[in-house]
C-alpha cells in the first residue's frame, strides 16, 4: 500500500471533515439518539419522560407480538433470500453458456435480464391487487380465491415475491460475473472426467461460485430484513393480523403510528445489533471460510 505523508497535521482532518460530518449527522447522531431513547419511557400523554433502564427491552422479550414479528421476519428473510437467489442463479446459469459463445453480445444480452425485473416490480402491485389485479381475476376463474388482504399466507406470499423480485437483477449480475470467472476448461475437464451437466454444476460450478453466493446471501438477508419497508408499506402494511409485520416495519409502526417511542427505539437497537452481527459474519467468512 502507498503511504502519503502529510507535513501539515491539520490538512488530513480538513480533507476528512465533510465525510466525517455526514457520517456523524446521518448515522452516529441518530444511532446515539435511538440508543438513548431505548432507555426512556414517555407517559401516555407524551408529557413526561423517565429513564427506565432495560425495561423497554424486557418488555420486548415478554411481548408475544414482538416474538411473532421475529418469527415473521425469519420466515420472510429466508424465503426472500432463497427465492431471489434461486431464480437469479437459474437465470445466470442459462445465460452463462450463451455469453461464452458470443462475446460481442455480452452486455446487450444482459440488459433485458437486468432491467426486466425492476420494471416488473412496479407491476406486482397491479397484478396482485385483489380488486383490479389480473392474477386474482385469473385465479378466481379457476376457482382459487386470492385475497391477500385477508389471507395471511397469501399476504406473506405476495410480499415475499414482490421483495425477492426486486433483488433478482442485482443477484443475477453478480452470479453472471461469478460464473464467467470460472474457467471453461474446469467444466470441460469435468465433462471428460465423466460428470454430466447436473453433476458438473454441483461438483464444480457451485463450489467455485461460493464466494459470490455467500456475499449475496448476506446482502440479501440484510436487504430482506431492513430494506423491504417500502414493499410492506405499499402492499400489506404488516397485516393481516400481524402476518407480515417484519421487524423493520414494526419499528416504524410502533414509533410513528403507535407513538411508543421507547419501544420503537429499543427495537431499532436490536436491528442495529443484527446488522453489526451480519457484517462481522460477512467479513470473517469471506476472508476465512469461503475459499478453496
Amino acid at each position, binding site marked *: 500500500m502507498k503511504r502519503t505523508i502529510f507535513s501539515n497535521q491539520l490538512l488530513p482532518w480538513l480533507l476528512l471533515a465533510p465525510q466525517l460530518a455526514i457520517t456523524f449527522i446521518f448515522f452516529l447522531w441518530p444511532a446515539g439518539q435511538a440508543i438513548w431513547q431505548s432507555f426512556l419511557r414517555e407517559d401516555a400523554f407524551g408529557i413526561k419522560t423517565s429513564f427506565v433502564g432495560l425495561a423497554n427491552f424486557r418488555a420486548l422479550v415478554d411481548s408475544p407480538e414482538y416474538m411473532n414479528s421475529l418469527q415473521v421476519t425469519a420466515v420472510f428473510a429466508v424465503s426472500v433470500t432463497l427465492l431471489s437467489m434461486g431464480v437469479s442463479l437459474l437465470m445466470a446459469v442459462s445465460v452463462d453458456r450463451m455469453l461464452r*459463445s*458470443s462475446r460481442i453480445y455480452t452486455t446487450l444480452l444482459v440488459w433485458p435480464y437486468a432491467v426486466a425485473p425492476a420494471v416488473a416490480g412496479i407491476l406486482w402491485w397491479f397484478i396482485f391487487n385483489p380488486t383490479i389485479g389480473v392474477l386474482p381475476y385469473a385465479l378466481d376463474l379457476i376457482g382459487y380465491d386470492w385475497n391477500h388482504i385477508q389471507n395471511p399466507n397469501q399476504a406473506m406470499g405476495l410480499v415475499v415475491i414482490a421483495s425477492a423480485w426486486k433483488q433478482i437483477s442485482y443477484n443475477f449480475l453478480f452470479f453472471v460475473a461469478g460464473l464467467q470467472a470460472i*474457467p471453461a*476448461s*474446469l467444466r*470441460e*475437464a*469435468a*465433462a*471428460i*472426467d*465423466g*460428470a*454430466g451437466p447436473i*453433476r458438473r454444476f454441483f*461438483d*464444480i460450478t457451485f*463450489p*467455485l461460485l461460493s464466494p459470490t453466493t455467500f456475499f449475496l446471501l448476506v446482502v440479501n438477508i440484510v436487504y430482506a430484513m431492513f430494506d423491504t419497508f417500502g414493499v410492506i408499506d405499499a402492499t400489506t402494511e404488516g397485516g393481516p393480523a400481524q402476518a407480515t409485520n417484519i421487524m423493520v416495519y414494526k419499528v416504524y409502526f410502533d414509533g410513528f403510528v403507535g407513538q411508543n417511542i421507547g419501544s420503537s427505539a429499543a427495537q431499532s437497537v436490536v436491528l442495529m445489533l443484527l446488522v453489526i452481527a451480519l457484517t462481522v459474519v460477512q467479513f470473517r467468512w469471506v476472508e476465512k471460510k469461503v475459499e*478453496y
Partner: protein
Amino acid sequence: MASITLDNVGKVYPGGTRAIGDVNIQIADGEFIVLVGPSGCGKSTLLRMVAGLETITDGEIRIGDKVVNKVEPADRDIAMVFQNYALYPHMSVRQNLAYGLKNRRTPKAEIDRRVNDAAEILQIGQFLDRKPRALSGGQRQRVAMGRAIVREPAAFLFDEPLSNLDAKLRVTMRLEIKELQKRLGTTSLYVTHDQLEAMTLADRLVVLNAGRIEQIGTPLEVYRKPASTFVAGFIGSPAMNLIDARAVPYLPGTAHAGTVGIRPEDLTVAADGPIEMQVQAVEELGAQRLVHGHTAGEAITITMPPTAPLSDTLRLTAAQDKLHLFDRQSGARIE
C-alpha cells in the same frame, strides 16, 4: 489402447471462421503424434474435436473402430491435459485424481490403488492432501498428468501442457512425458507450437498451417525432406534459408525451381565456394556461432564453429544433396 482415425475432418465455427479444412490422419495404437504449427493454425481446435469439446462440422473421427462424432467426451475413453492444467481448485490432489474414477463408479479400493500408483510414478505422493494452489507449476503439471493416467484411457490428448513452465523444467518434463508414454504405451495426440518439443517427442509429426496439413512424417523425415517452404521454414532451428532461385543461378539443378532451401548447418565456408555472403551480424551461442548476412539481396544465416575466422565477406558452398528445391507458385517440394 486404440487407434485414432481422422477422415476428411473439417470445422467451421458458428461465426463462419473455417478453423480446420479436410484433415486426414491415421494414428496407430500406441503411437505418439505431435500436432505442430504456428499460433492460430487450428491445433487446439483439432484436438478438442477429438476430445468431443467441439462439434465436428465435416468428416468423421474414429477412436478404435467406433465413430465418435456424436459421442459425449465422457464416453470417448480419452483423457486430456489442459494448457492451464484445469485442476479443480477446491479439491485436494487426491480428489482431483479420483474424480474421474468416482464418476465412473470405480470401486473404492481400485481408486486408491490407481491413485497411489500414479502418485508414485509421478512422485507426487507427498502432495496428495494439498490443494492445487499450494503446488508449484511443475507439480501442478504432474497432477494434471496424474489425472490423465489414473483413468487408464484409450488415448491421451495434450494441449500445450508445458507452455506455462520455465525453459529448464520444460526440458525435464518433456523427457518425462516421453518416457511415461513409452512405458504406458498409450496412444497420444500432443499439441505444441514449439518445434523443438515436437521434434523430440513425436513418433510422427503433423505440421499444420491455416487449418490444413502440410506434412505428416517422422521428425527426421520432416527435417530431411520438408514437403513445402512452410514446413522448411518452420521445422529446424535456426530456420532453413529460403532463397529465391534467381539469386543463385549458379547452383546446379535449380533452374526449374522457384525457391532453394539450404539449412544453416549445411552451408560451409570454402575459399572457392560459389556463394558470396556479405556478413551483417554475428551471434555467439557458445557452442556455435550464428552468422547473418545476405547474398544477392537474399537473407541467409549460417552456423560456424566459434573459433573459425570471420571476415566481412565469406565464400560458402553446399553439397548438392543438401539443397531443397521448391515450386515457385505452390511452395511444394520438387524431388
